[in-house]
């Protein structure tokens, strides 16, 4: 036991050494370094050594179509983006440690080094840039409206007068409705999934938030054919990948996102995860990667 532990420590030490040596160069180099380190051991420490090439990625666990945990499986657009980025950084999908990143905790998770990346419908804003470095954007979402499939009156934000909308307490979309559309009645719940039964029963007329999130719900099997997105998106939310402030990973993530869009994997991921809702990404997609990791 003691020897195994020693081996593991040796592997870790070797890895940190090689990492320090080659700085931000190539990630495959560090992987090789790790292997050499464990090579001296009997092999038992090999797994421990390999753990160092893992990534801790914060995603949503409860957002169908974007980041959803079902048992041990993680599905959704954010998950596919995260896996692609990890692949570009030389990390196997199996070596990703998924961490739940609820909206209010995303900055804290990065600042306290609990995750390396956050890919969780994370809109790039100036306030957040003070605490984390953003790569991306990898998607341009916009506030949309989810209505019952037979709804004809609601066709966009101008047709909402007197209607009852549902959103999440305190969220940006909820605030926008309250500020800019005073004639709208706003029911707020803790999560969007709580809005759904009330929408289907007719007590509320529409759910509003980012169109990606809405499409994720509409694409779920149990709501097939019952819901649709109405009108064009009426705001712009630029989803970025959050990295620790000043992290060297950030530029590499930018390159990975560019590669994903170029290769067509981006288009495929949108189709795979949100396509069932007849969802077409709004204007500006696929986005240009313009964040400078400041």
């Amino acid at each position, binding site marked *: 036991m003691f020897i195994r532990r020693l081996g593991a420590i040796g592997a870790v030490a070797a890895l940190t050494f090689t990492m320090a040596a080659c700085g931000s160069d190539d990630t495959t180099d560090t992987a090789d370094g790790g292997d050499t380190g464990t090579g001296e051991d009997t092999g038992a420490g090999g797994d421990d050594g390999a753990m160092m090439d893992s990534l801790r990625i914060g995603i949503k666990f409860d957002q169908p179509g974007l980041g959803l945990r079902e048992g041990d499986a993680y599905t959704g657009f954010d998950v596919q983006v995260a896996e692609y980025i990890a692949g570009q950084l030389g990390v196997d999908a199996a070596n990703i440690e998924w961490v739940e990143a609820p909206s209010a905790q995303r*900055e804290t998770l990065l600042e306290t080094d609990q995750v390396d990346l956050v890919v969780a419908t994370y809109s790039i804003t100036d306030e957040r840039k003070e605490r984390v470095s953003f790569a991306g954007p990898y998607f341009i979402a916009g506030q949309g409206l989810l209505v019952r499939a037979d709804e004809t009156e609601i066709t966009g934000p101008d047709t909402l007068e007197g209607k009852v909308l549902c959103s999440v307490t305190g969220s940006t979309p909820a*605030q926008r409705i309250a500020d800019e559309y005073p004639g709208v009645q706003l029911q707020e*719940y*803790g999560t969007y999934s709580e809005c759904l039964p*009330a929408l289907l*029963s007719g007590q509320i007329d529409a759910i509003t938030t980012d169109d990606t999130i809405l499409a994720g719900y509409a694409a779920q099997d149990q709501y097939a054919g019952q819901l649709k997105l109405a009108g064009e998106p009426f705001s712009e939310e630029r989803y970025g990948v959050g990295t620790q402030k000043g992290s060297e990973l950030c530029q590499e993530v930018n390159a990975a996102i560019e590669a994903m869009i170029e290769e067509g994997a981006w288009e495929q991921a949108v189709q795979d995860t949100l396509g069932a809702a007849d969802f077409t990404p709004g204007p500006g997609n696929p986005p240009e990667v313009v964040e400078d990791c400041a």
Partner: protein
Amino acid sequence: MIDILTEYDILGAFWKTIQLAFFSAIGSLVLGTILAVFRVSPVAVLRNIGASYVNITRNTPLTLILIFCSLALFGVLGYALAPRESPTYIVDNAFRWAVIGLSIYHAAFVCEALRSGVNTVPVGQAEAARAIGLTFGQSLSQVILPQAFRGAIAPLGSVLIALIKNTTVAAIISVPEAAALMRVIIENETGSLIVFFIFALGFVILTLPVGIGFTSLSRRLAVKR
């Protein structure tokens, strides 16, 4: 920090919290007193009803009760507590359901506090009341309950403090009280300790005087025996 204090209507949000706590306190006091009477009544059926109510609601999370009121009773079954035409239909409806939910939940605790108050009244008092020919209702309302309330003031104060803090749960069913505003601020300003401390301080300011007041009341009003 100054930005946060000037930009957001924190006092307004706490005023909503106070209103919520005030109406829920009245509701739970009325319902809790009825339940306490049930639990000490000589009728077995009433005693069982009281005991079942207390055991069920006391052991159900408040979040669940409020979600049930707002989502099941209003959202799915459509029992609205405000007229649909009203411009504040949703807000009023949510507030009223929140008062009902909070009252239902805290009535169980009020009932138990009162029952502990009843237990402070010596058996001799009840026997004496019966001996001079008072009915159950008369002896309860004239002899037992007045003393029970005076003996139960301290635990009732604890229930009220818990109630004030529990109003934060109503944020998840659309009541624009303090916790809902805290979510808004965290969303806009990124969560920081300052925001947390502002709201923690707000609740301390609300609950500390309640605690002090009830403690001194309980001393002044205690039945000297």
